[in-house]
């Protein structure tokens, strides 16, 4: 056994070490420049573009992850739970398609969909008598929020659907018999059962949405930085303006925020285990 352990563990660990160094290095590298020169940090904290990006990122997360993916996913899951059948397959099938198609392709689909002259949305609106709107220019933040909600709702929908399946139907039936209306049934019967999963979902999609780069493909952060979320800001400063050092200190800030979310997630998991 010892022989095997030495034989297998050593190469495996060397590998593991490599995998770790690659990532650890990125972590350390992301932090080190900021220790060498605090100027980068100071500059970030004094740069109005940084706050602009941070603000848009929060709007983006609030709109597309919380209101969009989580709330919509929850409402859809609840409706589909009652309906079942064809509707269920149709809605979840479409949502899943939106979720799994490669990002470059969905970005192009939305560029086509939102196009001012030919896009289907404007075709429909103008046939209803609404004047055409150049969505990506006039409402860039709204566009990427709606786009990202469209893109990511499937995850929350699938997660909530499977959570609802685990609630014993007798709970809901007996609540119905006792005359509870829909909001009562939701808040007193369903909600306590799925609270833990709701929390997990919120933390995960917040983390992901905060780190998503796809809006770059739709708007490039423009027009004039109006839809520049933090990841695009990092990309712009580092690779368009070549300020790698500055870019990495902003990355370090992003890493810290991510780390906060991950800690929250671990705490939530631990609490869930304790109550389970």
């Amino acid at each position: 056994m010892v022989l095997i352990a030495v034989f297998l563990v050593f190469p495996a660990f060397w590998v593991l070490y490599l995998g770790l160094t690659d990532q650890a290095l990125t972590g350390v590298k992301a932090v080190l420049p900021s220790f060498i020169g605090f100027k980068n940090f100071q500059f970030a904290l004094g740069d109005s573009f940084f706050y602009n990006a941070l603000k848009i990122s929060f709007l983006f997360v609030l709109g597309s992850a919380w209101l969009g993916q989580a709330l919509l996913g929850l409402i859809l899951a609840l409706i589909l739970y009652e309906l079942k059948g064809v509707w269920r397959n149709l809605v979840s099938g479409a949502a899943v398609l939106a979720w799994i198609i490669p990002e470059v392709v969905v970005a192009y689909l939305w560029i086509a969909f939102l196009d001012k002259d030919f896009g289907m949305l404007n075709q429909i609106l103008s046939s209803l008598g609404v004047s055409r709107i150049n969505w990506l220019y006039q409402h860039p933040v709204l566009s990427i929020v709606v786009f990202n909600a469209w893109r990511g709702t499937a995850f929350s929908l699938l997660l909530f659907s499977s959570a609802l399946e685990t609630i014993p139907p007798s709970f809901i039936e007996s609540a119905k018999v006792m005359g509870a209306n829909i909001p009562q049934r939701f808040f007193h019967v369903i909600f306590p059962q799925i609270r833990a999963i709701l929390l997990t979902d919120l933390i995960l999609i917040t983390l992901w949405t905060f780190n998503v780069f796809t809006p770059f493909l739709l708007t490039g952060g423009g027009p004039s930085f109006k839809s520049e979320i933090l990841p695009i800001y990092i990309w712009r400063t580092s690779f368009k303006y070549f300020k790698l050092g500055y870019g990495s200190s902003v990355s370090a800030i992003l890493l810290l925020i991510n780390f906060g979310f991950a800690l929250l997630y671990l705490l939530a998991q631990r609490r869930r285990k304790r109550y389970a």
Partner: protein
Amino acid sequence: MHKSGKVLVMLFLLLLVFWFILPLLWLIITPFSKEPSLGISITAPTLNNFAEVAKARSALMAFKNSLIISIGSVILVVTLASTASYALSRSRFTGKNAIITLLLIFSSVVTGVAAMVPIYALCQRLKLIDSLLGVVLVFSAGFLPTAIFILKDFIDRVPTAYEEAALVDGSRGADLFARIVFPLIGPGVAVVAVLCFVNIWSNFLVPFVLIRTNAKAPISVAIYQFFTEVGIPRIGLISAYSLLYALPVLIIYFYVSKKYGFGFFGGLKG
């Protein structure tokens, strides 16, 4: 539920279905259209647009690059993750749990966006900018933690009795691993390979940052270049190419979800 309430719910659902499906229609219709545009124009179906893809050298090159990157990374991840997770599963030493927790935190905190700048700097030092090998290494490092988690779970469930029997029969080291353990965790390896392939195939950011010359770009970057290049973008070519690009992912997804159920990808994508 009241009747009017039911109608309202149905209307809401219908609206949502349209919202989900309408943007997707373009991908199904335009590649076969004779007059491809950003709008939907339904004509008699044609394969002209696909012929255009076949003629575009850069499109074919990108297909090859994407295959090299995805398959190369999958092979690397599967080999490294299966050996590493075997070691983590079978050996006992202090700090094992710490390593696992550390891996968990790293894999969720160090996202592509947060790491792109340091990874670029690292690759610059290693002379791995504009090299497919660099992209493969970055992807593999990024996927290893997740892969190790999944595989460790599978290996934990394999009884050690198999290995002990093989030991008695004189099997040792790498041989024992390759002949006994690896086949036993086949389903786990398949899960990791599929997840890894789909995610890397679809990724845009990593090659976008690391690849400089067009000849080495994978499909995601090639499509981006097709529609940002100067002049009128060739919409027919782009639409047909996009469909071909999305197809492997769709096929894999529907095959897997039929076999293992819908929730398969849950929690692991992203």
